[in-house]
Structures are given as structure tokens and as C-alpha cells.
């Protein structure tokens, strides 16, 4: 009996040890050589190419084109959303089934590159196409290239020209003082002057931080920089707008729902270039009637948050040559223009030919974004970003919807970020 009990306990212990070691074992894997023929079965994990038209674009046009070029590679697609991307990756890693090719958001590269979960890409890929210099910065970690941009999503301010005309406002605000005054003036007839809250709070605050001359982290990603007066002022500005009655957190709209500028419930709002596509589907008369305009937020400097989707290769792929070939193909001009059009996003390279020019000129929000890539700033920049990004919204919200001061909220966030970086 004693022997049996011991055996059971030993088996449990051994199993646990195996599970623990197994979970961590992949960390030492490298991607293997990407030289040699591209062949085998690979998996793509993607949070974009949503809905039926997105799936058709990816599976028929993009993967179809890839198969013609690489007939020995079979691609299986695993669709997800940005909200669920982390958990997909976590469970895949724990189960040792990390997809060969993964699409990720801006800011995600340093954490995954630091842990050697994604493979370094050859520098020649950075020069393969006519990328805007700024565009490739979020694809790098420690100076090395780990990803290629597929589409960019910028944060700009869209406004109602009819509301501006009604209020006698002839130009867009050049700084926050003007923005606050205009928002107050435009708050009338049951509408709010400015809606910064329908976009993700984390990214909106970052946009205001950058426009106020601030930064998130030091260049090496080891020092928190946002907890100075510029970060506090950015958050305080939201509180001031709410105090004026010209912004209202409870009037924010959900993603995909008709936006407040679209319905006329707000005169200005922070949004992305994808709003153009949404309006084409939901309220084209606003575009046809030239009712909407857009500008880049400015205070101490003009700043536009550059988010987007990057494509990376898993460091643990069993078919590195096939995975590398697919990464390159997904980031090639023939793939990214379709993805940008489908989402209303900004393509990250210039050499897209006549079709590309036609698209960027037609979507005025994309055009504005491309013209302002020099003012673009991105989130992330530290290996601890995955943890810090989750803390931003719940830590800042008490200052916006509760009575907490902006200084206290930013100090708290700074403390959490410093602790996360220290744990790296």
C-alpha cells in the first residue's frame, strides 16, 4: 500500500515537473535556419482580415497568390481579435503550439523579441520596399528587425465642418487652449464639443502625452518617462473637458457602432482612419457632402499615434523557410494594399503604384495620416509592455470617472510600470 501511494505521488511530482519544464522549454528554441526551400504546413495567427470580406481577401487573394509562388507550402489560418490575441498566444505557448507566423500590434515586438519568442528578420527586408523611416521603428528591438508592417492605424481628430461653421470657427485648434475653448463653444443643443473617449483610453492618453512633448519610456525601455508633468497635464486635460461639460465619458460609443461625429452628437472626436471606411458603409452622405474634416492633435508639438499590425515569424517554427517566405509575402505591396483597403487603414510603404495612390487620395483620413508620419509616435518601447499596457486604462479611469486627481493616477501608473520593468 505504501509503495502504491508513493508511486502515485511520484507520478504526480514527475508529471508536474514535466509540465513545468515543458512549459518553459520552448524558450531556448531558435527559429532554425530560414535558408533552403520553402515547404511544409504553417499556421498564421491573425487579429485582422475580419468579417467575410477580410477572410475572402486573405484566403483567396493573399494566400492564393502565395500558393502560386510557393506551391509546397500549406497555410492554415487561425483568426482572432486583438482583445483575444494575448490569450491565444499565451495558451499556444503553454501548449507548445505557437503559430509559425503571427500578427501583432505595435508595442508587442520588444516583449516577444526579448524572450526570443519571435525570430530576427534579415535587415535586407527593411530595404526591400520603400518604407517610411518612422514606420519600421516599432518593428525593431535592440536595433534589430523582428517584424514587418502590414497596416498602420493612426489616431487623428475628426470634426464636423457644419458644426464649426455654425459656431463661426474657421480653423482647427493649434493647441489645447484653443481645443478646450472650441470644445466648450461647440457644446450646445445636446451635443458634446469633443469626444476623446470613444477611442481606447490608453491610446488617446498616449496621443495627448506625445502632443504635450512627453514620452512613455527611455530609449532603452528601462526608465519610465510618462510620469512627469506632461503626462499629468494630458490626463488633467480630460478632466478639464469633463468639468467644462464639453466631453462625457458615459457618451462614448462602442467599436463599430455609429460614432458620435457621425450621428452629430459630438463635434470633434479622436478616431482612426478606419472611420472613413465605416462612413462609406454606414453614412456615405457625410463624405459626399464634405461634412467631415480631420486634423492632427497638437499642443507643444503635433503628434499622431501610430498603431497598426505587424507580421512576425515564430522563433519556434518547424518550417522557418516557409514561415519567412509567408512573412515577406504578407508584408509585400500586393498584400498590404488589400488589407489597408479592407480595414480603411494606412499602408506603411510608398511604392504601391497607381492603385495605392488612388486609395490614399480617396480616403482623406489616410492621406492626412501619410502626410503626418513625421509626427507619428508609437506606444510600447519596453520589454515589460504587455503588462504595462493592461494597467493604463484601469489606472487612469478613476481620475476620469471618479474623484482621483490626475497627478495621483499618473504616479500610481508610474509605480506599476517601474515595478513591471524591474521584474524583467
Amino acid at each position, binding site marked *: 500500500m505504501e509503495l502504491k501511494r508513493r508511486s502515485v505521488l511520484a507520478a504526480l511530482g514527475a508529471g*508536474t515537473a514535466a509540465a513545468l519544464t515543458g512549459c518553459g522549454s520552448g524558450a531556448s528554441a531558435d527559429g532554425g535556419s530560414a535558408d533552403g526551400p520553402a515547404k511544409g504546413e504553417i499556421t498564421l495567427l491573425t487579429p485582422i482580415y475580419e468579417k467575410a470580406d477580410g477572410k475572402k481577401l486573405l484566403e483567396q487573394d493573399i494566400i492564393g497568390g502565395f500558393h502560386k509562388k510557393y506551391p509546397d507550402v500549406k497555410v492554415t489560418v487561425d483568426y482572432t481579435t486583438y482583445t483575444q490575441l494575448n490569450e491565444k498566444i499565451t495558451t499556444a505557448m503553454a501548449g507548445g503550439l505557437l503559430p509559425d507566423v503571427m500578427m501583432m500590434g505595435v508595442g508587442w515586438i520588444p516583449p516577444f523579441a526579448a524572450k526570443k519568442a519571435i525570430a530576427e528578420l534579415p535587415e535586407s527586408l527593411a530595404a526591400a520596399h520603400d518604407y517610411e523611416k518612422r514606420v519600421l521603428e516599432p518593428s525593431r528591438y535592440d536595433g534589430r528587425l523582428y517584424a514587418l508592417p502590414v497596416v498602420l492605424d493612426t489616431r487623428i481628430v475628426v470634426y464636423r465642418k457644419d458644426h464649426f461653421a455654425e459656431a463661426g470657427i474657421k480653423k482647427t485648434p493649434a493647441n489645447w487652449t484653443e481645443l478646450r475653448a472650441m470644445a466648450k463653444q461647440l457644446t450646445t443643443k445636446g451635443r458634446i464639443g469633443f469626444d476623446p473617449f470613444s477611442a481606447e483610453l490608453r491610446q488617446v492618453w498616449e496621443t495627448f502625452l506625445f502632443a504635450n512633448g512627453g514620452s512613455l519610456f527611455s530609449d532603452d525601455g528601462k526608465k519610465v518617462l510618462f510620469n512627469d508633468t506632461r503626462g499629468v497635464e494630458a490626463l488633467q486635460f480630460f478632466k478639464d473637458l469633463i468639468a467644462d461639460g464639453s466631453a462625457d465619458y458615459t457618451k462614448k460609443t462602442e467599436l463599430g457602432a455609429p460614432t458620435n461625429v457621425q450621428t452629430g452628437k459630438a463635434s470633434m472626436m479622436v478616431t482612426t482612419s478606419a472611420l472613413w471606411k465605416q462612413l462609406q458603409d454606414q453614412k456615405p452622405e457625410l463624405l459626399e457632402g464634405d461634412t467631415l474634416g480631420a486634423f492632427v492633435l497638437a499642443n507643444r508639438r503635433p503628434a499622431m499615434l501610430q498603431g497598426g499590425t505587424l507580421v512576425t515569424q515564430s522563433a519556434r517554427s518547424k518550417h522557418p523557410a516557409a514561415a519567412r517566405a509567408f512573412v515577406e509575402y504578407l508584408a509585400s505591396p500586393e498584400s498590404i494594399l488589400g488589407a489597408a483597403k479592407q480595414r480603411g487603414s494606412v499602408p506603411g510603404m510608398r511604392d504601391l503604384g497607381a492603385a495605392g495612390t488612388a486609395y490614399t487620395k480617396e480616403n482623406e483620413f489616410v492621406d492626412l495620416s501619410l502626410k503626418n508620419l513625421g509626427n507619428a509616435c508609437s506606444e510600447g518601447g519596453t520589454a515589460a509592455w504587455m503588462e504595462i499596457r493592461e494597467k493604463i486604462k484601469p489606472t487612469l479611469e478613476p481620475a476620469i470617472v471618479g474623484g482621483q486627481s490626475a497627478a495621483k493616477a499618473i504616479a500610481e501608473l508610474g509605480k506599476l510600470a517601474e515595478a513591471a520593468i524591474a521584474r524583467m
Partner: protein
Amino acid sequence: MVAPALLHAALWIGLPVVASVALAFTKYDVLSAPQFIGLDNFREMLDDAVFRKSIWNTVVYTFFTVPVGMLLGLLLAMALHTGLKARGIFRTAVFLPQVTATVAIALVWLWIYNPGNGLFNSVLSIFGIHGPAWLLSTSWSMPSVILVGIWQGIGMKMLIYLAALQSLPKELYEAASVDGASRVRQFFSLTLPLLKPATFFVLITSMINAFQSFDQIYVLTDGGPANSTTMMTFEIYKSAFREFRVGYACAQSLVLFALLLAFTLVNRRMMGGTRGHS
């Protein structure tokens, strides 16, 4: 005969439990191998204001959803037990939320709570009342989530109480009637004491369910606004899957387990276990 069950339990329950306990003392991010850090995760939890808030929110949520849900479940079971017309339809309607995916339910409630064109505010506007932004207000978000929790849990409570009511001996009630006991007296002196084992079972399972509430928070509020609806399970999920801090999530899970165990033991002692009145 015991071996397959033992193997199953060891593999699918024992191993994960042992692994969770072991990982609670490590720094583990899935990307690299776990590192032993002793009690650091537990020390950090003491300073984690959001996790403390989530414990409080979980207790508040449980405090309201469990007793209110039990009372309503019992009332509905009694109504169905006493020969209500169209019992089948009524029983199905009450039980339906229990077997419907929480995500689907939460999406319907998202519409009901929509401050612009949701059902609640539309009805309130008929009476000239400007309804709040239910899920975006720190004052209203928790009551809104509690309401969904109560509504969703009533079906199972009702079903257990109904089964228990149907098994109560009729001769006791006949004797009580002969002795001149009123319906109210019968309820308090016979029904409630006889339902004690069922009540204990409903209380414990409801409490465990309430402590493990996750789906409705995930879909309805994402723990916000300002952490006003975040719960322990939601924080565990965030730590593990959004922040890649699996070791810390395991430590949080142990705290959840300890709390549940403590509450169960207290309840067991207070109610005298599962023994009914003889």
C-alpha cells in the same frame, strides 16, 4: 475499478492543482522557464490595490446575488409546486438563462443597458426619467452586473428547490393542517427546516458560482469603469492571459481557493452541515 477514476483525477485534477500551487511560488511568463521566487507573489498581492478591490467586489457581488437569487428561486419553486397554470412553459422560461451561453446573455444585457437606445432607459424615458449610463457609471455598474447575475442564476436554484419540495412528505403537512397550522406557519415550521439540506447545497454551489463569475464581467464591463466591477477571477485571467504573469495568477488563484474554502467551512458550521431536521 478505482484505478481509472484515480488516474483521471490525478491527471486532470491532481496534476493541474499541484502545478498551480508550485507555479504560485515562481515568476513564470510562459515565454521562459519558471523561476522560484518564494513568497514574492503573495507579498506583491498585499500591495496590489486592484486585486484587493476585486476581492471586495467579489464579496459584494456574492452577498447580493446569492441570498436574493435563493429567495427568488425558492419563491418560484413554491409557485410551480403549488399547481401554477402552464407550469412547463414557466419552468422552461426561468431555467433558460441557465442553459444559454453567458456571452449571448451578456450581449442582450449590453443592449438592455445601452444608455442611448437600451430597453431600460427607453422605458424610463416614457416616465420622463433620464436613465444613467448603467455600465459606464461607477455607481451603477456593480448593481447592473449583480442584476444579471441574479437573473441568470435563478433557474438552477429554482430547479433544486422544486426537486426538494416535491420530495417533502405530504403526511407532515396533512398532520399540520389537522392541528390547525396556517400556510405561513407550515412554511416556517415545516418547509424551511425540511429544505435545509437543499438550502445548504444551493448556498454552497451558488457561492462558488458567484466567486467564479467571469463571463458577464468579460463581456459587459471588462472590469470597469475604474475597476468598479472587476472580480477575482477576472484579475486572475488578466494576470495570466493579458499580462503574461502566470505565476502571479496562480498565487491569486490560491487566495481565491482559500477564501472559498473558508466561506464553505463557515457556512457548513453555521448551518450544521447537510443534515435536515428529523
